[in-house]
């Protein structure tokens, strides 16, 4: 592999778009090439700094209301109660069309994960239903403590995975506790956080149909759902906080899995 190929693959590695084989090739090249090693380090730091900088802008409130007013809705209808437990709502989300011809030989040799499958949609709907169920009185937590060292061991013996439990109180996400839940017929861990008055359920399991390529954010029944795959685990975060806050939350969980300074 030459340095030009490596440059492109380094970017794909950082963006989580490489399969294990190509990731290994890049790492082999980087181990032997100090210029590319430096690039990888710097690009990764830049990527993290850009994520942390929160460059996404909030749309001004007047723009939101301008658009809402332009929609043919009456004000009474806008706040009408939502129908819960209605997965058919989302059937119009078809699978992602993977029609793009991979022209470059380089790109053609890469393996990309096809996301947006039917199964992913089913799980997305189930995750939202589980979130809504958890909000009913007495259903939120099996183990109620803000101590991450209590929550994490609680899952031992109940699940075949050790879900990461992170204390993000300083960042405005308070750890409330944990719960055992069932998604797609399988037991999953739910780690419960609170942002101001809003509850966030973070569902974690080994295989839970999360997007392999990169984090995906979508809205279902008025809830925001972010799913991603990291460190061999699938994550689904569900809440009624704003999409960018949920993104921020997801990025913090990911960051906690990869403590900085370890490289």
């Amino acid at each position, binding site marked *: 592999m030459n340095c030009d190929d490596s440059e492109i693959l380094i970017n794909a590695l950082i963006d989580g778009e490489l399969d294990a084989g190509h990731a290994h090739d890049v790492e082999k090249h980087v181990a032997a090439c100090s210029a590319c090693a430096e690039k990888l380090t710097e690009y990764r730091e830049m990527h993290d700094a850009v994520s942390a900088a929160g460059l996404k802008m909030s749309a001004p409130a007047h723009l939101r209301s301008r658009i809402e007013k332009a929609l*043919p809705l009456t004000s009474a209808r806008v706040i009408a109660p939502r129908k819960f437990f209605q997965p058919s709502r989302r059937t119009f989300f078809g699978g992602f069309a993977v029609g793009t011809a991979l*022209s470059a030989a380089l790109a053609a040799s890469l393996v990309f994960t096809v996301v947006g499958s039917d199964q992913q949609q089913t799980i997305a709907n189930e995750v939202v239903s589980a979130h809504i169920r958890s909000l009913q009185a007495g259903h939120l937590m099996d183990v109620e403590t803000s101590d991450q060292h209590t929550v994490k061991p609680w899952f031992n013996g109940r699940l075949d995975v050790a879900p990461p439990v992170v204390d993000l109180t300083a960042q405005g996400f308070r750890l409330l506790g944990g719960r055992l839940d069932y998604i797609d017929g399988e037991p999953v861990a739910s780690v419960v956080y609170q942002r101001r008055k809003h509850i966030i359920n973070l569902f974690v399991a080994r295989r839970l149909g999360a997007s392999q390529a990169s984090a995906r954010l979508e809205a279902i029944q008025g809830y925001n759902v972010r799913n991603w795959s990291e460190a061999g685990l699938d994550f689904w975060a569900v809440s009624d906080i704003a*999409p960018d806050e949920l993104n921020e939350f997801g990025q913090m969980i990911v960051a906690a899995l990869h403590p900085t300074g370890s490289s």
Partner: protein
Amino acid sequence: MAGRDTMTGEGNGEHDKARRFRDAALPYLDDVYSLARYLMRNPADAEDAAQECYMRALRHFDSYRGPEMKPWLLTILRNVCNAEFARRRKQEIPTDFPEHESAAEELPIWQEPTSSPETTMVRRQDGDTIRRLVAALPQPFREAIVLREINDLSYHEIAEVAGVPVGTVMSRLARARSMLRAAWNGAEGAIP
């Protein structure tokens, strides 16, 4: 608006469609607005583009079968912005954008990195500086990096939005990060 309870079936259908559209599309307003800001480069134009994007999306919502909502909206937004640029070029309306694309390319901020061997880490930059550096990238590299880093799209989705093959997305992102890195390490306001 209390009298609307007796609306016709047709009205209900429109209503239901609008509500479904609102639930599905409005959560991505920040994404749409952010991309609009980086493409149009001023808040007023970005707001107009975002609103036009949502109006167009609503009109086409009936035939919408995917891809995912976010890339679909961003594709529409990108078309809105490009149409606006094309209109301006045709009418040759003088704009007051100091960072016109050709001008941006003349900025000498991304020369070869000047980092010495002992500084292998990128300099720490504050959020405003990072925003400025991204905004100063020329198209189509700016678009690629915004879709990746801010809108959080996968390579496939970026390819769909930008209407180019995945290989092109990859080379654009590599070039974008290379330019960003040079500008980053040379930028004023760096915290050494």
